[in-house]
């Protein structure tokens, strides 16, 4: 932003830069984006409660939980990374960013493995499908939503990994410093949103019916 525009700026708290406000608006639109999927899920589940419960029991709760741990931890490390960079601890920030990237990558690896298991168990609703009983239609739709929702999440995660990699390089080369930490802060916000989506995906996909 040019100095002139800087001078014209007024109003909102000085903490939030233009880009930060812009990013939050983007996050709001992301909330609507994923929200629509949750909405489709909710309406379909209301009409097929038993099928959703039955199908959800076939998801791999262990892998899902491992992924929760991975991604929840990664949003801690990314928040810490942004904090460290702000306070000038560049080296710590770099390590934390790398750790975040690794955790994200592991999440993706686990997810890929889980997809592989799902395919082996014929849980993919197109093609040969594992369920044939009276609930098959609803179960098919559950797994359809399961793949669409986790798939959309994975796409966001992959984008996030790209952004984080750019941040790692930027911090390592000294492009982002305590005086110029905004990009890293925005990346951290985006990553935390990807984490938030998983927070909601986990109970609605893995924990519908476990007793």
């Amino acid at each position, binding site marked *: 932003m040019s100095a002139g525009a800087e001078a014209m700026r007024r109003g909102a708290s000085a903490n939030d830069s233009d880009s930060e406000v812009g990013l939050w608006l983007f996050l709001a639109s992301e909330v609507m984006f994923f*929200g629509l999927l949750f909405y489709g899920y909710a309406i379909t589940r209301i009409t097929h409660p038993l099928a959703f419960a039955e199908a959800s029991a076939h998801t791999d709760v262990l892998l899902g939980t491992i992924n929760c741990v991975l991604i929840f931890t990664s949003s801690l490390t990314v928040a810490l990374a942004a904090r460290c960079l702000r306070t000038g601890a560049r080296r710590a920030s770099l390590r934390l960013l790398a750790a975040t990237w690794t955790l994200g990558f592991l999440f993706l690896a686990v997810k890929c493995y889980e997809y592989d298991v799902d395919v082996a168990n014929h849980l993919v609703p197109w093609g040969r499908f594992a369920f044939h009983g009276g609930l098959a239609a609803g179960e098919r739709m559950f797994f359809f939503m399961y793949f669409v929702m986790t798939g959309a999440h994975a796409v966001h995660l992959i984008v996030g990994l790209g952004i984080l990699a750019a941040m790692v390089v930027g911090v390592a080369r000294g492009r982002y410093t305590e005086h110029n930490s905004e990009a890293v802060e925005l990346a951290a916000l985006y990553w935390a949103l990807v984490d938030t989506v998983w927070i909601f995906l986990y109970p*609605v996909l893995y924990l519908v019916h476990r007793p």
Partner: protein
Amino acid sequence: MTSTLRLIGVWLAVMALLGLSLGTAYLPMGRYNSIVCVTLAFIQALLVWTFFMRLRWSGLLVRLIAMVGLLWLLLLLGLSLTDYLTRHTIAS
């Protein structure tokens, strides 16, 4: 580094809630299972947004923007439910 410790504390809380949510999922509570799980997820998300995403330190504008997406979703779901929850009540 109290704020670092605070972030780690928040992380511990989120993990604890994860454990809780996984644990309660195995209790036979009928339809309350889902209500509990989703409520816990909301608390986790609130923690993440408040501390990791620094909403606690943000201005009013950013907080408003953060809330508006959720509000609009409630609008979408709420008004749709007027259809889905009453569609078959009139005898056909």
